[in-house]
């Protein structure tokens, strides 16, 4: 028995022994994970390691589902990396607490800074006009539609306005067991609510000049009402009140619902399960004002302020976001590029990206950035929105009541942000 015990402990020790010694080790954490992304990340990191032979990069990949709480726990307990993948919704939480290092000094001397498109630096600087992260790509919403279902319902072209959207949904929903729209009622559904609200109100301003929230404006309320109406009239699956990202993508490629609003990276999963002639991507719908407001999100790389090897950490970020690295990365992640020149890359010339580039070149399409600079936004988006919007969808609240609750939270958030 005793020998067994010792063997067990020995095995334990063996399995968690120290790794091969290197002169320096950088810790890199990725939070939006999938096996393919990890492989790609490792490949780019290898380029960095080859160029800096005495540096080793230790990659930690957090499972995507619980990555938020897992990373928060790590940071709170002092287990911080040198470089971390930073989604836009997390930025306010970490930057406002002084956890992140400003990248301004490094950007000043970087040779590629001038090649970045305007949006990159603008969005990286949302917190106190300082670059606490360097974005690696953009996620712009567009409308995916199922060509087969459209054909079966007699629809010739994707909808361009809100009214057309509802009409199309109705036609598809009349097919037995099919629905028009894959509604994201669960986690991460905030984008759709914002898009519909802005659509009808004709503006993407979240706040009035006096700092109060615009959510209670009649336009926004009508927009919320429209989206809720789509669910209540049975144009979205009854189950979708609980649906998250994976559910809507699955709903789309399994042919249950004909349309979803999503970013380019959803294409990777969809392309695996559907043939190119079965689906298409169109620009997002326009509202009564003739304007469209697809949400634009982004993720990037940040450096932790308590890191001991900041120069090296910057070099890693520079490699990841450098011209070859970034393109390789975006090819895998499906995000839109940060470099002005990259738009000409053959990857983006693919017909499937046409929808997004059409959006970007259309003056009536205004990519809407959500107020992620607000510290309270993360909680609002992840907790308050699902709960209250589900109540709205289920008829427990009216759109006006929900808008009031949201406005209260937003106004308070803005005020306490000073």
């Amino acid at each position, binding site marked *: 028995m005793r020998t067994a015990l010792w063997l067990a402990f020995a095995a334990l020790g063996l399995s968690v022994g120290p790794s091969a010694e290197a002169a320096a080790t950088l810790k890199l954490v990725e939070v939006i994970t999938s096996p393919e992304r990890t492989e790609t990340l490792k490949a780019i990191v290898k380029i960095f390691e080859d160029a800096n032979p005495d540096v080793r990069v230790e990659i930690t990949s957090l499972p995507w589902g619980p990555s*938020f709480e897992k990373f*928060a726990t790590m940071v*709170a307990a002092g287990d911080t990396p040198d470089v971390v993948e930073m989604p836009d919704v997390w930025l306010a939480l970490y930057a406002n*607490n002084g956890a992140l290092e400003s990248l301004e000094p490094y950007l000043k001397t970087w040779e590629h800074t001038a090649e970045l498109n305007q949006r990159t630096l603008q969005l990286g600087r949302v917190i106190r006009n300082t670059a606490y992260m360097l974005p690696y790509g953009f996620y712009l919403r567009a409308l995916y539609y199922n060509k087969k279902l459209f054909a079966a319902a007699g629809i010739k072209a994707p909808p361009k306005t809100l009214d057309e959207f509802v009409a199309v949904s109705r036609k598809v929903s009349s097919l037995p067991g099919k629905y028009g729209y894959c509604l994201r009622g669960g986690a991460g559904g905030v984008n759709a609510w914002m898009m519909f609200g802005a659509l009808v109100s004709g503006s993407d301003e979240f706040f009035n000049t006096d700092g109060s929230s615009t959510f209670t404006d009649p336009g926004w309320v009508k927009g919320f009402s429209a989206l809720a109406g789509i669910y209540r009239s049975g144009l979205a699956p009854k189950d979708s009140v*609980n649906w998250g990202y994976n559910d809507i993508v699955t709903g789309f490629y399994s042919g249950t619902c004909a349309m979803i609003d999503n970013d380019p990276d959803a294409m990777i999963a969809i392309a695996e399960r559907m043939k190119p002639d079965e689906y298409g991507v169109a620009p997002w719908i326009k509202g009564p004002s003739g304007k469209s407001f697809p949400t634009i999100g982004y993720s990037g790389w940040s450096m932790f302020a308590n890191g001991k090897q900041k120069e090296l950490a910057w070099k890693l970020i520079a490699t990841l976001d450098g011209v070859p690295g970034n393109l390789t990365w975006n090819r895998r992640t499906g995000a839109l590029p940060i470099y002005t020149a990259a738009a000409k890359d053959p990857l983006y010339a693919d017909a499937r990206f046409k929808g997004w580039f059409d959006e970007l070149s259309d003056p009536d399409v205004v990519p809407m950035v959500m107020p992620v600079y607000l510290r309270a936004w993360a909680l609002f988006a992840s*907790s308050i929105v699902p*709960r209250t919007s*589900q109540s709205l969808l289920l008829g427990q609240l009216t759109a006006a009541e929900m808008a009031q609750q949201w406005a209260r939270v937003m106004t308070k958030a803005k005020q306490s942000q000073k």
Partner: protein
Amino acid sequence: MGTGHDQSETEPEVRAVRRRLASSAEPYLYSAPALILIVAVMLVPLSVGLSYAFRDIQLLDPFSGGFVGFDHFRELKADHSFRAALLNTVVWTGASVALQFIFGLILALLLNREFPGRRLVQALVFLPWAVPTFLVGLDWAWLFNPVVGPLPGWLFTLKITHDTNNLLADPATALIGPIVGAIWWGIPFFAITILAALQSIPKDLYEAASIDGAGAFKQFRSITLPLLAPTIVITILLRTVWVANFADLIVVMTNGGPADSTQTVASYIFTTAFRRLDFGYASTIAAVLLMLLFVYALAILSLRRLLVQRQS
């Protein structure tokens, strides 16, 4: 080993004293390893965790941590979500434990008789306990999903439901999903412990009763039930405490939704801690839950003492 010498009077005395010392230290020595581990690894974090209830602990704000006294408790008193979660917890715990117990009792009674294939049946029917709980949640969520699971169709055909929608998407029925999963997973626990207790009841009691002409039902009521009572009480106590704290199934199957209709105190603690990142408030809720369970445990244990006394 003595050499048979006639040593001085002190040797047996010394040995006696040593033995007395040893025997008074013995219980503590045997309990020490477990005790030290539990105190160090559970009690210390537990007390630290409880202390958060009186402080403002925002997980990502290194400047938080100030003492706030009973502020959190005051906030809790006015918290509607907490009250709703408490109600859900009572329903969730009550239904899960009661049904697990009833079905576990029936199973134990069935397995208490010898019959061919009994060992095999016993092994098969206890398998659910070996499945990790989040896998249980995923599996049952899959089963209830009308796109990929058979249950909505069957329930509709059996006229138990009037459509083939997902139970989990309707606030009125959403809690049923996790309850069914919990029942499936928890029956073996009750069945095993009750079966063990059943098998320790001397058979002659039943034989004597049969000779006296008592039917099966009467035997159950006057022999089985009273002798089982202490075991039943302890297992129900333990299970209730575990289930009340059990958020896994709910988080995996419904995430507390839709619209918080399946939010229990345990899952509310989870969301407060890991979404709001407010560990202070989460700890307050946990402390209140702990107090409630403590009161419940005391009540149950007094009941048990009553039953044991009545038995003897």
